[in-house]
């Protein structure tokens, strides 16, 4: 069954890229979920869609070749900075930054798509993911992002944990909460932009939250939760990509449904234990 993935280079790169995002998406998702910011991933994925649409429009309409992964990444990072700024402007209503940025992302996407008179299959691939969309170049970019994310999380793990558990305490202790938050949301933006090739805009937030929701039910401690989230993320991505390929279904759908099954098992296990 795995033979095609070993034989064809484009499938091999998709598979390897899947392994990478199956690790970094739930890793960041763990911090996002415990901070009750799950919808941030949705907002950023829609801003990324605006960036991708911009890249596709620029190529189709004006002949500028901008890789959509780069334009998506740039828009996502800018969107993440705006979210963080809006959170400080609306201190008492921090969640309002999410619908603002999400709607801005969708609005811009509609404008870019209209200017380009539509994109057909390209856009479908970006919305729901694709097993054939990952290029060698994409793989190297995503591998670079993975290394960057892992190093930053390793270096700032204790700050991120302290802030996630108790932001007020972190502020009192003298941590630079604003800057660490900014760094974290930029990482999130990069991971979302990197994941979209395989999982798709509409489902990327699921890969960041569903494995975490499952691990949360059974983990005894934060590090164990991270480990289980990554494990569940990898199972979902590997199974989702392979089944998506053989069933000729976009992998976004199969990855999310695998994650849902894992989540249901985790909920069932917890109930059985009781």
């Amino acid at each position, binding site marked *: 069954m795995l033979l095609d993935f070993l034989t064809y280079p484009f499938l091999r790169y998709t598979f390897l890229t899947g392994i990478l995002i199956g690790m970094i998406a739930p890793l960041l998702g763990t911090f996002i979920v415990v901070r009750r910011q799950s919808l941030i991933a949705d907002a950023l994925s829609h801003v990324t869609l605006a960036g991708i649409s911009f890249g596709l429009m620029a190529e189709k309409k004006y002949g500028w070749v901008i890789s959509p992964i780069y334009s998506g990444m740039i828009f996502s990072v800018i969107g993440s900075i705006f979210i963080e700024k809006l959170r400080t402007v609306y201190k008492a209503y921090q969640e309002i930054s999410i619908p603002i940025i999400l709607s801005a992302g969708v609005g811009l996407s509609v404008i870019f798509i209209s200017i380009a008179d539509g994109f057909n299959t390209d856009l479908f691939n970006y919305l729901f993911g694709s097993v054939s969309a990952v290029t060698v170049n994409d793989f190297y970019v995503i591998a670079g992002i993975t290394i960057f994310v892992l190093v930053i999380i390793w270096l700032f793990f204790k700050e991120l*944990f*302290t802030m*996630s558990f108790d932001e007020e*305490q972190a*502020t*009192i*202790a003298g941590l630079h909460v604003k800057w660490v938050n900014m760094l974290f949301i930029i990482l999130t933006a990069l991971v979302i932009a990197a994941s979209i090739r395989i999982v798709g805009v509409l489902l990327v937030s699921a890969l960041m939250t569903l494995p975490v929701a499952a691990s*949360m039910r059974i983990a005894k401690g*934060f590090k164990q939760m991270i480990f289980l989230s990554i494990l569940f993320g990898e199972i979902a991505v590997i199974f989702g990509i392979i089944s998506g390929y053989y069933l000729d279904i976009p992998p976004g759908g199969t990855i999310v449904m695998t994650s849902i099954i894992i989540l249901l098992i985790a909920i069932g296990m917890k109930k059985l234990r009781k």
Partner: protein
Amino acid sequence: MTTPVVSMSNINFHYESRKVLDDINFEIPQGAFMGLVGPNGGGKTTLIRLILGLEKQETGEIMVFGQSIQKLKNRARIGFVSQKANTFNKGFPATVYEVVASGLTAQLGYLKFLTKKDKQKVHEAIAQVGMTEYTKQNIGNLSGGQQQRIFIARALVSDPELIILDEPTVGIDYENVKKFYELLYKLNTEFKKTLLLVTHDTGTMTEYATDIVCLNKTMHFHGNPDEYALLTEADFSQIYGHPVSLVTH
């Protein structure tokens, strides 16, 4: 004469048009166990937020360990325990060890990792609050009183000289409140920590505190428990801004 741990002079503070603190002057001497009491909205939490540097006073000066709080580099000298047992995210899957270790984050600094010695400190702080057997347990599974002990351990782990506690016994049953005060007393007498405790529970607090301050926008009383015991219903009515009947047990 030793420098007071906290010294406030001529402090005024408004929230928008509402005056919260009016010309506050007071000191917390080294080694004190100070109880801060007063009605809701009387400025207790604001006073704490000013000492912690979370708010900036409009007038006057706040000195902590002889330095302006804004310039105090080693924030680990102050430990803070809030009403967390009531408000924190109980679904957060963190072990007791992980929570207490987070108390060292700021002291260690960026790009530094816990050493063997630091890990030992974490275990010692957990032992100081009598929670060693719960080290690997998920904090969300503990009782309110046990969780509050863990938050004290988190404050203790960086070896602060001053510990500020904002109504830490809210939602904790009487038996555990008593044990909690015994722990605070031990920290004050045995481990020489200066304590500032905001509370509504004046009965138990007066058994252990060395100093009591009554605050309702202005400072109405500052004295020791014996002097506090002499306050009359008329005094309390003035402090609380409405008629108060004293009930003794």
